[in-house]
């Protein structure tokens, strides 16, 4: 069954078929979310929210674009909202999420488990720097970067999600890489001085 056929069935009351839609797109949505939040637990929660919202607004899906494009838009908006809310959090909450992220880091890197503690520390420090630099990117650049690197989307597909042109996406990606390189250079210099 195609996505649109499934959607018709779901809208006529067959909720069980939503599972098929879910299993088809879950991995991509999860990858998009993790690109923004860098935490497995948060990405799981966000994926859940994305699919709940998708189900609730399924009737408003006109079929002008691919279902996956529509779903990516929801995932991007939800993730950006989550990131904005996290930025507004108090210092105590931020400290808490910092420690949670450290736990996630250990979960992510299977290779890090084989490293000795010193190597693991350096690995985690580098990871922290990189995720900080990624989080500092302007929103549009960040979205383009996540969709390109985490979801392996072509510039055309990214342009569809962002409702823009391929040229604009190319420019966004170029600027994102330049910004990221500059920020990383600064962070590395600061890290070396410590």
């Amino acid at each position: 069954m195609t996505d649109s056929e499934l959607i018709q069935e779901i809208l006529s009351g067959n909720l069980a078929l939503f599972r098929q839609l879910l299993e088809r797109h879950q991995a991509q949505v999860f990858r998009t979310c993790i690109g923004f939040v860098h935490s497995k637990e948060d990405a799981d929660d966000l994926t859940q929210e994305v699919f709940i919202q998708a189900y609730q607004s399924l009737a408003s899906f006109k079929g002008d674009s691919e279902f996956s494009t529509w779903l990516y838009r929801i995932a991007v908006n939800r993730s950006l909202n989550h990131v904005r809310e996290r930025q507004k959090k108090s210092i105590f909450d931020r400290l808490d999420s910092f420690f949670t992220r450290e736990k996630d880091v250990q979960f992510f890197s299977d290779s890090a488990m084989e490293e000795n503690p010193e190597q693991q520390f350096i690995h985690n420090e580098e990871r922290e720097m990189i995720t900080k630099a990624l989080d500092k990117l302007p929103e549009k650049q960040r979205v383009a970067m996540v969709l390109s690197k985490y979801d392996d989307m072509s510039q055309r597909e990214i342009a569809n999600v962002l409702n823009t042109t391929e040229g604009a996406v190319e420019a966004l990606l170029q600027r994102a890489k330049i910004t990221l390189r500059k920020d990383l250079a600064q962070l590395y210099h600061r890290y070396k001085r410590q």
Partner: protein
Amino acid sequence: MNCSTCQKHLDAYFDGTLSVDLKIQVDDHLAACKACAELYARWSVVEQVMNEEKSTSSNPFLATRIMSQLEEMQAKKYAPAHSIAKRPVFRPVTVVFIVGVAISLGVLLGNLYRPLQVRHAPSTELLYLDDATIEPIAFYDAK
């Protein structure tokens, strides 16, 4: 190859989509230029971190979790239609009915109640009375 050309081709170099000629040129430049080699090393860490995050899989029960939440939401949505008592119109009627039953039950139980009639026990003086000493009735009959 100069630095800007090398940096321009780094993405394709990472993706493995660079032609053999260009790849050799980039390799040569990276071996000779310290700044570009450092940039390459830094960028390779970025790629590594992103690939690690990308290869993380979601909770295996996530689909089940989402489906159960959706089913719960749908059950809540349709619950008022199935349960008459939960309809807003029927709520006051239900309350009045329950209060009425409670009052009737109270009245019924109240009527069933009978106060305990206490039979006073004979006083100690009466207990010690010896009936034998009381004059027999026959004495009066004889008269």
